[in-house]
């Protein structure tokens, strides 16, 4: 993974000093709440219900074991001994003290980490596929480009105070796993007819209050121009995006208002001036950054391993885990492993300091000392030998990190919700826990099969509920917490936004509602169909009918 040079390190150190000074000025009363807000936000510090929340950047989800250990130590020293992985592949600390944050940042800087631009109206952490570099369907490893873009976007002077937050995702696979269509800019890398790396550029996607999938603004962009083309897009947005109403300030609203053709014309006109400026990427620079992402020193291994095969045959629990948590790898004899942060009945994405230390040890022992965070809020060991899987599983299992539920109903994406977040309308974690307990029977869970259930505590959609096969949104009705249910949302190449099935439900009703949605699926499915396929084939009405029929029955 990327290692800092003197320039990277100096910049992060200077940021610590700058933020320490800003905090001191705030504590001394020299900065008002209003003036301090954009400064702390650009450093990932929110003031929440219980305490501040600090969001630490994990660029495109990559972590070294050393960094993860440090995060564990920080969570123990400055927080309550746990952290939360977010849907932007970042780590959130829920209980730090505002006055401790400069010290936390200083500690992070010692392991090449920071909290720069993890919030605020600026370019946020650039996200990508958690299997980048190892996925068999990968065309281009997008990480070098993600790092080039990270550096370019860090303190970009022209885009320091945009109308609203700005999220970029990059993807280099046939099957999109980075939800490029749900980003302000999505960059899909591919090989063009000449065999050159090119980018399909999506713009104006986003979830939140107004969920919109992105539109292609350019089918073919040479990779050298990735930064200058982004500059053109963001410049048009910076000047013309609305600043009078935060709910209408995202780029998607501007793109919809102007229409893609008009917007594109403005961007292309702007790009004529910016194209070939010094931010144009060279082969040499991409190669310099790319050397940090070269393939691991893999051993030459056979495609099969006898000990692995016999462990599968003799141990059903291990076999169930392999089925859900172990993924194909482009190198023979290797697999990628997802460590589930979704044990049933616990807050999705949460991890204790002790578990962080275990994962760091596992990474050192079995996966070249690297870990990745996924936007589904799990951790990945990307390069594990087949012959090591059983040992790894035993250790992960002992640490509560081997729930065999990846891609299943209980692998819930969930925001911190009303328990922590001051924006939330409703709690989300207790809903996730209640649903997980309702579907605690593993055989049943595996029979239901692939299903993505996403929960957000408010319309800001941090839990990506719009693209969940089942989406749950917390809403406020006359001061009490209710939940609106959508079905048919999906991430990936054929992304879609879910449809609301009807009036919202109370928290107590939610496990039963999901249960009834599943009943319709089980009854209607063909042998090959996943939940999402059945929804797409038969539509919302049968699901709606069954859910609300039982609701009326219980009300009578």
């Amino acid at each position, binding site marked *: 993974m990327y290692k800092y040079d003197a320039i990277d390190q100096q910049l992060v150190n200077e940021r610590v000093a700058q933020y320490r000074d800003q905090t001191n000025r705030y504590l001394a009363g020299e900065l008002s709440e209003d003036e301090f807000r954009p400064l702390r936000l650009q450093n990932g510090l929110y003031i929440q219900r219980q305490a501040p929340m600090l969001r630490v950047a994990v660029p495109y989800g990559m972590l070294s074991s050393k960094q993860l250990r440090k995060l564990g130590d920080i969570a123990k020293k400055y927080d309550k001994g746990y952290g939360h992985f977010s849907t932007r592949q970042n780590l959130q600390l829920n209980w730090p003290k505002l006055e401790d944050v400069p010290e936390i940042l200083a500690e992070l800087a010692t392991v090449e980490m920071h909290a720069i631009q993890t919030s605020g109206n600026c370019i946020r952490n650039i996200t990508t596929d958690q299997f980048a570099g190892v996925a068999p369907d990968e065309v281009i490893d997008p990480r070098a480009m993600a790092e080039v873009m990270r550096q370019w976007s860090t303190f970009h002077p022209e885009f320091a105070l945009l109308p609203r937050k700005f999220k970029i995702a990059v993807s280099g696979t046939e099957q999109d796993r980075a939800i490029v269509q749900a980003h302000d800019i999505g960059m899909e890398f591919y090989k063009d007819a000449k065999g050159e790396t090119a980018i399909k550029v999506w713009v104006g996607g986003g979830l939140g209050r107004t969920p919109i999938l992105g539109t292609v603004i350019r089918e073919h962009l040479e990779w050298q121009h990735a*930064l200058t083309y982004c500059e053109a897009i963001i410049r048009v947005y910076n000047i*013309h995006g609305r600043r*009078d109403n935060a709910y209408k300030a995202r780029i998607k609203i501007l793109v919809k208002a102007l229409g893609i053709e008009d917007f594109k014309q403005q961007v292309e006109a702007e790009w004529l001036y910016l194209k070939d400026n010094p931010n144009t990427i060279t082969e040499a620079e991409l190669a310099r950054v790319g050397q940090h992402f070269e393939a691991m020193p893999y051993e030459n291994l056979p495609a099969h391993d006898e000990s692995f095969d016999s462990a599968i045959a003799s141990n059903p629990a291990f076999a169930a885990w392999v089925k859900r948590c172990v993924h194909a790898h482009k190198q023979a004899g290797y697999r990628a492993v997802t460590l589930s942060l979704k044990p049933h009945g616990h807050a999705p994405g949460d991890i204790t300091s002790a578990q962080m230390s275990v994962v760091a040890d596992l990474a050192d022992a079995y996966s070249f000392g690297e870990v990745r965070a996924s936007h589904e809020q799990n951790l990945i060991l990307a390069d594990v030998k087949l012959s090591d899987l059983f040992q790894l599983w035993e250790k992960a299992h002992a640490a509560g990190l081997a729930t065999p539920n990846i891609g299943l109903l209980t692998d819930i994406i969930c925001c911190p919700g009303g328990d922590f977040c001051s924006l939330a309308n409703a709690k989300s974690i207790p809903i996730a826990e209640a649903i997980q307990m309702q579907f605690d029977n593993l055989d049943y869970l595996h029979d239901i099969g692939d299903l993505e259930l996403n929960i957000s505590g408010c319309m800001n959609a941090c839990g990506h509920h719009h693209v969940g096969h089942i989406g749950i949104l917390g809403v406020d009705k006359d001061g009490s917490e209710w939940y609106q249910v959508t079905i048919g949302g999906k991430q990936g190449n054929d992304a879609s936004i879910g449809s609301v099935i009807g009036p919202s439900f109370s928290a107590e009703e939610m496990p039963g509602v999901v249960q009834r949605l599943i009943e319709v699926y089980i009854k209607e499915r063909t042998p090959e169909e996943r939940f999402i396929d059945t929804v797409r084939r038969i539509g919302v009405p049968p699901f709606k009918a069954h859910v609300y029929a039982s609701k009326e029955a219980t009300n009578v």
Partner: protein
Amino acid sequence: MSNLIKDNAIVADEWTRVTPPTLGEETVRKQAGKVVLFKLTGEETFSAEQIAATKIPAGKVLVPFSVWCANKDALASRVSQGEVGLLVATHEAIEDVITEVKDINAFALVAVYVERFADGRIFTIGNLLRTRYDFKNELRAVGDVLRDQLFFLKRSGFNSYLIRADRSATEALASLKDFSEPYQGAVDIAQPAWRRTIR
């Protein structure tokens, strides 16, 4: 003491800012409307009456764009003597300003007024003035200008900053040096870090 920073030092402000008078109760605020009016939504503009009632004193004057438009001919000789600065607000389209003034370098000073700290349009406007319209003279940030914008303003082509009256310009001066080696190319340093040094 002056609150003006110019080229890394605190200097006296020689310019008198011209502000149209407030007439009665009415402030004209453009209402949210069509797409083309996004940038004007809710922002204060001066009425024709206000502009007509504006008195322009002698000496070096910083004149709002709309006031200059109404007094173009009267101000022409003062412009050529380097006594007129142009004040542009962040919601005014810079390309329209350029079309109207023809030679932006005729003005000894262009100041960009930012009403709120969070309004980042000022950075794009500075960048365009320097890189596209080739403005060579003093480029000043005025309005809600606080030390934490300064590094970005400098990188966007500004070379003078009128710090908000209730804040210390001396302290703000330090922020121009917040970061020693920025990553990306911008107006002040055109080359990105990797083109400047061997990394």
